[in-house]
């Protein structure tokens, strides 16, 4: 007995909204490659972030105001937010099936991730600026 459905194919027509955008290999490669860099950057960043807890203004500026911590934290934020954007993209594709809403979520993800990375890098450039 055959059951007629609208799903002639799982990847086209009505089934299209349940599959990814066929860019999975590049995504998986990027996530792995970026994580190699993010592992040392993340551990070092965690070290300096803990050092900021409960500290007054001058101490916070002094702690991360040197070139090395400022560069590591900037690198962590910039690469980390690209990694985070790719990860969030995957989550959007998994859970948002409405085509219009999906497009809005992907655009919002792009803008928010760029804003957060820029916020970190610009703030650190101010903090570590030579006097």
């Amino acid at each position, binding site marked *: 007995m055959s059951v007629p459905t609208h799903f002639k194919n799982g990847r086209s027509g009505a089934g299209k909204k349940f599959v990814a955008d066929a860019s999975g290999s590049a995504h998986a490669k990027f996530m792995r490659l970026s994580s190699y860099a993010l592992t040392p950057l993340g551990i070092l960043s965690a070290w300096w972030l*803990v050092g900021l807890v409960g500290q007054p203004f001058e101490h916070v500026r002094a702690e991360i105001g040197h070139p090395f911590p400022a560069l590591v934290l900037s690198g962590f934020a910039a690469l980390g937010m690209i990694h985070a954007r790719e990860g969030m993209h995957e989550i959007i594709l998994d859970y948002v099936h409405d085509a219009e809403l999906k497009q809005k979520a992907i655009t919002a993800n792009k803008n928010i991730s760029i804003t957060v990375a820029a916020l970190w890098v610009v703030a650190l450039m101010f*903090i570590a600026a030579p006097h």
Partner: protein
Amino acid sequence: MAKTDSNDFAQKRPLSPHLSVYRPMMTMMMSIAHRITGVALYVGMAVLGLFLLGAALGSSAFSLVSWLGSGFIGATLVFLITWAIFHHILGGVRHAFWDRGLYMDPKGREFLALGTLIGGVAMTVILWTARLLVG
């Protein structure tokens, strides 16, 4: 969504991995935790970005955002963010093992998933202890 009939079919279509019929396992829990810590780090980076912006703009701007990095709320926030960083890193390490075909037997994969959980907590505690000792 104008085509209501095909949409109904779409909603009734069973989706993998049938979450409700799965027995909770360590690998599954750590997979979910990996995604949750990833989203938490996205939000945490935005919050810490505001903290850094305050520190960049000056002492009066810093006084508006200093609670994000001090007191019970700030300390808890940064503690959870550092734990999320370590848990997410070890989640990646776990996948690096699996990518190379290692630890894929039933005992090995549960061991690795448990190691993610214990290792993440341990690394967070070691980092905070070391930071308190160094000052």
